[in-house]
């Protein structure tokens, strides 16, 4: 068991390191011209050289990567036109266009994305599992067919189209926008309501199907029949005995989904104008802000890898039937 966890952790670390090196090579060593972008159209050669110097673009590739890694672990110093800026660990550099540390920008963006994803997850878990469980109990009836059919259709509508139409036409919902939770939980929730409903309702379709399938399987098991034969009420059999067994596969899918949504809330953020991780990356794309792009990609990778690791390890505890190979 311990060996398995150790192996998974090592492989996760290797993935993060390779992502770091590969994306660094892609972003900073490709024959791109970041200094020219920062300098803008009216650029003097002296200013260009100064910028290149401050970004260490004149150094060999290996030492550039080394100083970037060093910045993450212990922090580094930036030399811009004679002034020295201290960038404490974990340092991901300074934004080319905003002049702020990338870590600060990311730290401001992450709570927004997390709020969207977690709130959406509450909606789709509640709606999806409840609908799925009900559909499983009335399997084969027209109600069941209606549920399955409508999940199919909801799942097939392009998400950005759905979100856009909600944003444009569902004007009865409160205006969306991000207000920090600690300032006022009520405005926080009302600003995110539309986004939550969008994320929640579209994903609920998938969760309805998952939980319907796994509830049908669980309700066909012997222990459910035994419980029913002991005279336990149907409601208790379904929601206490069946649901508990039926939810294990759903929980696994949920863990992986959650990680992907954290890195893929871009459409929601962009359509509802919420300044999260995706919008930060989008803005950086438009302005060719490489350190921010790189930081966004790195944070996304780490979130994804860590979540996958947690799900894998949690699964071995949740389901004793999983054999470790």
């Amino acid at each position, binding site marked *: 068991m311990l060996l398995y966890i150790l192996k998974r952790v090592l*492989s996760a670390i*290797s*993935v993060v390191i*390779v*992502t770091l090196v590969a*994306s660094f090579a*892609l*972003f900073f060593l*490709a*024959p*791109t*011209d970041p200094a*020219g*972008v920062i300098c803008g*159209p009216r650029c003097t050669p002296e200013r260009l050289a100064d910028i290149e110097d401050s970004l260490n673009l004149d150094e060999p590739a290996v030492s550039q990567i080394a100083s970037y890694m060093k910045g993450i672990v212990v922090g580094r110093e930036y030399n811009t036109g004679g002034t020295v800026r201290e960038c404490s660990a974990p340092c991901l550099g300074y934004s080319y266009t905003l002049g702020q540390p990338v870590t600060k920008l990311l730290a401001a963006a992450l709570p927004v994305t997390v709020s969207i994803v977690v709130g959406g997850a509450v909606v789709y878990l509640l709606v999806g599992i409840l609908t799925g469980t009900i559909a499983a109990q009335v399997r084969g009836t027209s109600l069941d067919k209606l549920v*399955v059919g409508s999940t*199919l*259709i909801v*799942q*097939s*509508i*392009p*998400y*950005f*189209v759905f979100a*856009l*139409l909600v944003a*444009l*036409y569902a004007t009865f919902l409160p205006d969306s926008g991000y207000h920090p939770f600690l300032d006022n939980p009520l405005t926080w929730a009302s600003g995110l309501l539309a986004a939550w409903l969008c994320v929640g309702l579209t994903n609920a379709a998938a969760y309805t199907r998952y939980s319907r399938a796994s509830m049908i399987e669980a309700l066909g098991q012997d222990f459910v029949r035994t419980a029913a034969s002991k005279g336990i009420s149907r409601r208790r059999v379904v929601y206490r005995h069946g649901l508990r067994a039926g939810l294990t596969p759903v929980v696994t899918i949920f863990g992986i989904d959650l990680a*992907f949504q954290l*890195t*893929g809330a*871009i*459409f929601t953020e*962009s359509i509802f104008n919420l300044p999260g*991780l*995706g919008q930060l*990356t*989008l803005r*950086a*794309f*438009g302005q*060719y802000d*490489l350190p921010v*792009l*790189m930081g*966004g*990609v790195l944070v*996304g*990778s780490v*979130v*994804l*890898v860590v979540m*996958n690791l947690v799900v894998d390890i949690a699964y071995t505890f949740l389901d004793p039937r999983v054999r470790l190979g």
Partner: protein
Amino acid sequence: MEPLIEEAELARAGSPTDAMASPAVDPEKKVDTRRKSPTQIALARLRKDKVAVICASIFAFFVLIAIFAPLLAKLEGQDPTTLHQDLIDQYGYPTIPPNGEHWFGVEPRLGRDLFARFVYGARPSLIVAGTVTILTTIIGVTIGLLAGFVGGWLDRIVSWVIDFVLSLPYLLFAIAVPAVLLTLFVGTAENAAAQDVANARFFSLIIVLSFFGWASLARLIRGEVLSLREREFISAAKVLGVPTRKILFKELLPNLVAPIVISVSMALPSYIVVEAGLTFLGVGLTEPTPSWGLTIAAAQNYYRADPLYLWIPVLAITILVLSLSLLGDSIRDAFDPRTRR
């Protein structure tokens, strides 16, 4: 094999082959002995599925629109790039409703013909999604076959790479990588011609989507091959000295038709969505390429004044993706009887 043929011969002659079998075998009755491959059986099942037939026709309809886009535009007498500034008032709104000359009306602000942009817009969606689906399928199947069959260090490396690709934040990379590819293709963006940028965007989109798309299919194929390669017919082929290439493509591949077809049918609609979505965000295709994603992005500012402008591409992409997804679902049911509801 011999006893089976004997049995068949006996059955044809009318004598019971088994003491337990019913003796009432009618010697006159013609037995349908045409052999059907599993693929043919699945296709026959698919033809009987009404939803599948309707969805396939809708898909074919869109493909025809894309192929005959120039012809359709000519039929209307317009093209997707001409600016009709005379039909736009000083606030940027079109002064004419849809009419015989402009079937869907004209775009606000620029005044380009909307019907022409609609028919041409079907092209990039289908070309990008189709190309990416073909590329990822070829790459995924080849790598999966090799890793599963050869095993050893190759398998270990490939498995790690698959895990690696699958654990990258796909959408973030899809935004970040084209930024770099663009400068590789056309240099600094400021002095590049719009058409060059559009072409570079087109290719970098295909490259990025292909890079992230092959891994899940490769993993699936590798798993299937791992179980297939222990079967007798593969051992037999190996003993007979059949070259590895032939074992892979003549022995193993035909057994993998079902998972490959299912994966293709699921991949196509998802790439159409991703292309339109990224284009909508401004990181996919760009002007002057006519694309539904671009039209939707531009039309969201006019949704009240000019709802048709927004709703035509919205409905087109929704219907296309919906029918492809439902078709994919039917294909999965037809090829994989275990999933039948």
